C-alpha cells in the first residue's frame, strides 16, 4: 500500500514529504522536488525498489487545475515482491531542475537524457546530460506544449543539393 511507504517517508523526512494516492492497484506518491532525491534513495535502499522502470515527463501547460508546469514521474519496481510504485514530482519554469538519480539506478542515464531532450528539464549531477534523440543543434524542446506542432523551422535548415552540382 502506498500509505505504508508514505508513513515511512514522512517519519524519516518530516510530515508532508509524500502524498499517497491510489487508483485501483496503481500506487502513487507525490513528493516535493526538494526531497525527491532523498525519498527515491530511501525507497531504493530501505524499501527494496531496486528497478527504475520508466521515467516520464508531463507538461501541464494549459491544464485548468494545474499549479505546476512539469511533472516528472518515476516508475519504480521491487523485483523481489513485484510491487510497483509511481513517484511524482513537479518542477517549474524558468529553470526546471531535478536531481539526477543515475547513482541510484544506472538505467536512469538515458531516460534522463531523453527527458532533457524533450522537455528541457535539467538533471543536476547527471554525468553526461546531452540530447539523445534530436541533434545537438536543435535549440528547443519539442514535447513542451508551447512548441508548435510543425516546429520552429528546424527541418528546413539543410542545404539543398541541385542536380547540376551533385
Amino acid at each position, binding site marked *: 500500500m502506498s500509505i505504508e511507504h508514505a508513513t515511512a517517508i514522512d517519519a524519516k523526512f518530516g510530515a508532508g514529504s509524500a502524498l499517497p494516492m491510489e487508483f485501483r492497484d496503481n500506487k502513487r506518491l507525490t513528493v516535493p522536488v526538494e526531497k525527491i532525491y532523498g525519498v527515491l534513495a530511501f525507497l531504493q535502499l530501505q524499501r527494496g525498489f531496486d528497478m527504475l522502470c520508466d521515467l516520464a515527463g508531463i507538461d501541464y501547460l494549459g491544464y485548468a487545475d494545474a499549479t505546476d508546469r512539469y511533472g516528472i514521474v518515476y516508475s519504480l519496481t521491487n523485483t523481489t515482491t513485484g510491487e510497483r510504485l509511481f513517484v511524482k514530482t513537479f518542477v517549474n519554469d524558468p529553470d526546471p531542475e531535478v536531481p539526477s538519480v543515475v547513482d541510484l539506478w544506472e538505467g536512469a542515464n538515458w531516460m534522463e537524457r531523453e527527458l532533457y531532450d524533450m522537455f528541457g528539464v535539467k538533471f543536476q549531477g547527471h554525468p553526461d546530460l546531452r540530447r539523445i534523440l534530436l541533434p545537438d543543434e536543435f535549440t528547443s524542446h519539442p514535447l513542451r506544449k508551447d512548441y508548435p506542432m510543425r516546429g520552429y523551422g528546424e527541418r528546413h535548415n539543410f*542545404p*539543398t543539393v541541385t542536380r547540376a552540382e551533385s
Partner: protein
Amino acid sequence: MALKLDDNIFVSKLDFLANWVRKNSLWPMPFATACCGIELMASASSRYDLARFGSEAMRFTPRQCDVMIVAGRVAMKMVPVMQRIWLQMPEPKWCISMGACASTGGVFDTYSVVQGIDRFIPVDVYVPGCPPRPEQVIRAVLDLQEKIMKGGTIDGREFAKRTAYEGPGDRLGELDPSEVVIAPGNFATGKRLRGLPLVN
C-alpha cells in the same frame, strides 16, 4: 551520305545507344526507411519481378547504383545521410521518390520529418501511394526508362542544365515568420555545438 553499308551495319546516335543501354540496367539503391521498403522488396521478388525491367540488382552501396529509390519517411536527422548517399552515387544517376512520405511528408507533418525529399535532393520520378503497390514501383521504373530515352545524353548534359532548386516553392512559406528560428550549427557536416541557448 552516299556511303554503301552492308546489311548487318546500322547507324545510330551515340546518345540513343547510351540511353538504351542505361535504361535496361537501372541498378537501384534502396534507401528504404519505412513500410515502402517492404513494398520495394515485394516489387523485386518473384511475384512482381522487377528483374523483367532490368532493375533487379539492388546494391546496398551507392557506388554501384544508378537510381536511388527513397522509400519511406525521412527524418530530419537522416537528411545529411541521404544527401551523402546521393552524392556518392556515380553519374549518371536518378532518383525515385517512392510513397507519400518521401514525396510530401505524408501524414507526418511534425517538426522532425522532412516534408518531401525534393526539398533537399533532386527527384526524377514521384510515386504516389501509402505505400505504393509494386505495380506502381514498376510503373515508376518504366517512366524513368522513358525519361532516359527521351532526354538522356551520353555525357549527362541534361543534368548540367538542372542548376536550379527543383522542389516546392518557398520552403519557409508554410510557417508563420514568428515561428521560424534558424537553428545554429551545421546539419550538413554534422558539426556539433555545445551549450546552445534555449529558445524557450
